[in-house]
């Protein structure tokens, strides 16, 4: 009797804490979206009037538009470069001897574990010598390095779950290694590659610290402009931009979830 009562209290307590923490996690996202549709000229919550004025401000500002373009192009290029490079690297490491694989794995996850401020400062001074600061290429190269670990980790875990005998079977049936890789292995780790691509895109799009140092001028990213703007004041235009970024993130997240779903259905 006593134990059952105890368990009920424990359960209730857990539920209250759980809901509170989830609320804490989702609160910022919940707040930004309605605020972006506010008609007032200053930040208020809850908004008293509805308008698209902040979206209009965002979409008609040449600076914001240029920054958006830079960020999108950088994110797309980063995805296009990091996904194949990372996938090939994952395949190469998967097939390598454990000793080489372990050493390379540690090197390749460096961009995740080294504090990004150090990478940013290091890249900044490297680019100063190469004349890459404030260029799109510079941003893309740096973002590629940051995105690679995500692609490699997801593709390697995909390869781990894949029955590698299939590639051997294809080769025994007459396919060269490259043909077997392309026609048999790639279709089956496709989901991991796609997940890696989404992660690469979001990594680049949301990256702040490196962009803050190495992007600028005509090639300033949207995160750099937002960061500088937030240092000064709370411009409601940022609510509109943030809402757009949230939408992109949620789309990417849903994409990854759908990929995971269809993968499980297939198995």
């Amino acid at each position: 009797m006593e134990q059952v009562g105890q368990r009920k209290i424990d359960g209730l307590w857990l539920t209250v804490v759980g809901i509170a923490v989830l609320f804490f996690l989702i609160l910022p996202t919940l707040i930004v979206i309605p605020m972006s549709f506010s008609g007032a000229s200053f930040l208020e919550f809850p908004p008293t009037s509805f308008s698209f004025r902040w979206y209009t401000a965002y979409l008609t500002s040449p600076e914001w538009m240029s920054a958006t373009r830079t960020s999108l192009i950088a994110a797309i290029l980063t995805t296009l470069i990091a996904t194949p490079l990372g996938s090939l690297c994952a395949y190469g490491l998967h097939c390598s001897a454990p000793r080489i694989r372990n050493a390379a794995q540690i090197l390749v996850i460096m961009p995740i574990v080294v504090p990004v401020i150090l990478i940013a400062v290091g890249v900044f001074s490297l680019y100063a010598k190469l004349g890459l600061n404030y260029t799109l290429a510079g941003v893309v190269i740096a973002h590629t390095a940051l995105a690679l670990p995500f692609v490699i980790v997801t593709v390697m875990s995909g390869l781990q779950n894949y029955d590698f005998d299939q590639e051997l079977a294809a080769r025994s049936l007459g396919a060269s290694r490259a043909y077997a890789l392309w026609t048999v292995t790639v279709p089956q780790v496709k989901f991991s590659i796609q997940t890696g691509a989404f992660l690469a895109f979001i990594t680049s799009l949301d990256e702040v610290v490196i962009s803050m140092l190495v992007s600028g001028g005509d090639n300033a990213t949207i995160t750099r402009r937002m960061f500088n703007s937030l240092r000064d004041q709370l411009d409601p235009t940022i609510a509109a931009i943030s809402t757009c970024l949230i939408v992109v993130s949620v789309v990417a997240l849903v994409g990854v979830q759908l990929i995971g779903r269809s993968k499980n259905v297939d198995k």
Partner: protein
Amino acid sequence: MSAVEGYESAEALQNVSTLKSENHRERRTFLGLSMPAVLVVLVVVFLPVLWLSSLSFFNAAGELSSENYARIFKSELYLRTFVVTFQISVAVTVICVLVGYPLCYWLARMSDRNAAILMVFVLVPFWTSVLVRTYAWLVLLQRNGIINESMISMGIIDEPLQLAHNLTGSIIGMVHIMLPFLVLPLYATMRSVDTDLVRAAVGLGSSPRGAFWRVFFPMSLPGLFAGIVLVFILSLGFFVTPALLGGGRVQMLAQRIESTITIYSNWGAASALGVVLLLMALLMIWLMNRVFGLDKLFMR
């Protein structure tokens, strides 16, 4: 290879060189596939950070010296930065554990479907830009933001509290950013714990609480530890949120490094700070590797 020499009969060694060169060719192919990615990381991350670190061992005149380290460990300002960084990182990690563990435990006891639905509340912020979330907290925590307003209207406080542009704001914002890093590995580990074991423990006479502490909790430790290390490392080097929510009153290491370079152009001192930061991060990673196994990161 010494393995080949182990075979006694001389005529057993047919085709040795052909086979060896085939082996080398294959190894080179795999290495070649990995090389482009490895090179990018090497050139963009490894070498610049190494070069940056090396600056710390030279003084302004370009001579080898430990001047920079002597300076940062004698300077009140820099020492305070270390202390503050450490305090904030510990605080953030502790809070994340205190709120994250119950959340994960609650989710782990649900059906797969319900838990998957509620995990959206963790994943959406996780995938949302740090900048966007920091902005949201700036708005929420303002003097006349909703948190203050609602607390006043509920009669909890009379005067608005100073929540943003200080330590409190930084910690709240950082906990929000870091929490998913604790929750994701911890939740995954808890999900994989065999609930039959816990039930068996209860069946064998443990109280539910006893079973939790003796059976479930130890089995969730690897995930908890991974989460703690991740949160702590990321907090140590965190830049964006404290820079915006701290309002200049909170100076963590990353900000100090940035301002030492962009404002004072003092590369030597910044580099020494960076080396200390890097060593702390690597130490944590090494610990994580020892206890948890870094290759877990590469599997699911």
